[in-house]
């Protein structure tokens, strides 16, 4: 019995001394971080933006945006000369909501900027939104209005509204338009790695990703005339969907 106790003590001591020799360095305490406050905002050609307001646009049209929603996947902050950190995986940005923002803990230091993807990557795009937790931004509870149940895929970007295309400002707003883009081939990465910011320990840095809603229709080399090109569910009007995606990838700016 005495021998047994000696052996047991020896083994226990050995385990205590040698246990977990390759444990990773513990993560820094929360107090070591700073905060990035990231907010998605919008304007219309420089004017404050609000859903259901009427704005002047190209061709002297009056435009009334009624729905502007996008799904954002993999928001990343890139440290200067260092690694990228995914600060949020999934986010639904609905410009009719009072806020589209989040606070994210980041290591202090200089950052080149952020990037994000508009859409849902292939790993989730053809999954079952009813199987995701109800708190998930892409779950059927949160994003049912952004899911095509007839083809099992997400609508990446939804822009709907009405327009007065008479060019006279009659205010009739008789042209309904909608742009619903999706499909794996429409998944787009938006990078702002030349928009640096600094994270300071214990402090909050504000960063705004601003969408110019007018640029959803009006670009440098292409302008969509909603009098003639006013509807796409992507599959039924692929060329218009492709044009629309090209426009919205250029419609964002980042500022502090």
């Amino acid at each position: 019995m005495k021998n047994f106790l000696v052996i047991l003590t020896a083994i226990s001591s050995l385990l205590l001394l040698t246990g977990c020799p390759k444990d990773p360095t513990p993560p820094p305490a929360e107090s070591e971080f700073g905060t990035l406050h990231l907010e998605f905002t919008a304007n219309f050609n420089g004017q404050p933006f609000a859903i259901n307001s009427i704005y002047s646009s190209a061709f002297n049209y009056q435009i009334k945006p009624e729905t502007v929603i996008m799904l954002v996947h993999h928001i990343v902050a890139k440290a200067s000369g260092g690694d990228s950190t995914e600060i949020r995986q999934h986010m639904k940005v609905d410009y009719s909501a009072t806020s589209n923002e989040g606070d994210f803990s980041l290591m202090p230091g200089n950052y080149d900027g952020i990037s994000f993807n508009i859409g849902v990557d292939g790993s989730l795009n053809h999954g079952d939104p009813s199987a995701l937790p109800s708190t998930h931004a892409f779950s059927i509870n949160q994003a049912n209005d952004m899911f095509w149940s007839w083809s099992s895929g997400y609508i990446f970007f939804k822009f709907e509204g009405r327009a007065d295309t008479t060019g006279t400002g009659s205010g009739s707003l008789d042209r309904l338009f909608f742009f619903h883009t999706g499909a794996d081939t429409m998944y787009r990465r938006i990078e702002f790695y030349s928009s640096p910011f600094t994270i300071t320990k214990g402090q909050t840095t504000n960063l705004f990703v601003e969408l110019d809603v007018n640029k959803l229709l009006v670009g440098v080399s292409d302008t969509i005339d909603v009098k003639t090109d006013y509807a796409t569910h992507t599959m039924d009007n692929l060329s218009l969907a492709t044009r629309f995606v090209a426009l919205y990838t250029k419609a964002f700016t980042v500022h502090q």
Partner: protein
Amino acid sequence: MSKKTVILFILLSGILIFNESCRHDPDYLFDDSYTLNTPSGFPAPAIPDDNTLTKNRISLGKKLFYDKRLSVDNTISCASCHIQQHGFSDTSSLSHGVSGRTGIRNAPALINLAWMNSFMRDGGVPTLELQILAPLQDHNEMASDINATVTELKDDDYYAMMSQRAYNRDFDPFVLTRAISAFERTLISGNSRYDKFLRGEITLTSSETNGMNMFFSAPFNCSSCHSGFNFTDLTFQNNGLYQHYADTGRARITLRPEDSGKFRVPTLRNVAQTAPYMFDGSLATLSDVVDHYASGGANHPNKSPLINGFTLTSQEKTDLINFLNCLTDNEFLNNSAFREN
């Protein structure tokens, strides 16, 4: 301690444990397991891991299948367009939805879905669970929002109780889609006159036999696509119904021009009961269908090379249709297990 005392102690303990179990769990003796009745000659179906079949799940799904509260105005249930006596299909050319709206396609038969590898006539939906969302949220069908539907139904005592029993969670979109799928996977047809013939239980008439021989041979080529135990090879084919398709079918999903006008080859089980035919219900009778294939169909660049037309006598046409009638499974069409309680 004597042997008698030990035995008495064990017996009393057993009785006490049994009573305690029953007191806390009234379903202690209820066997919830369910074995799918797979007909002979059918392969084992692929049942998803998160929706294995149980009696509670199937019961819950059947209740939901017949519940008109799934539609936005409580007028349409799944069963409104999927009628058992018609092989869980519809007699209308196009589905009828809420407020007199009309869908864009003919309601397909719900038969042997446990063996399907994708859903909808264009195959755009990869799982049966996901497919439940399509008619429920289609503006021209049930026009619901699943979250609103769940909000309405979750306070229903039956659904609340059965959801816990079947899936061990509150009633939610996951439960709704899984339960209806579970019920639909039980809609198995494999006992037609043709099946009985294959099992050696009956003989076919000479007309049926002649029709069968035509079905399985050139120049008719029916079985080139309508093959296997379920009379479908699950491919998507353009059968030359139109020269120009307003509904592009499979191309709507794949975006490939070469898929334009292609639709899934449907099962022919119970085909005599599932009129009208084709993706848009444009052919009213089996006679019309045979005439279409005999004509060779309209020219379309994607038309299947197997559809070249053929000639047949009036008697041969009757024989072919008589064989198709052999695929009617009256046991399936009248199975009380599938009826609304």
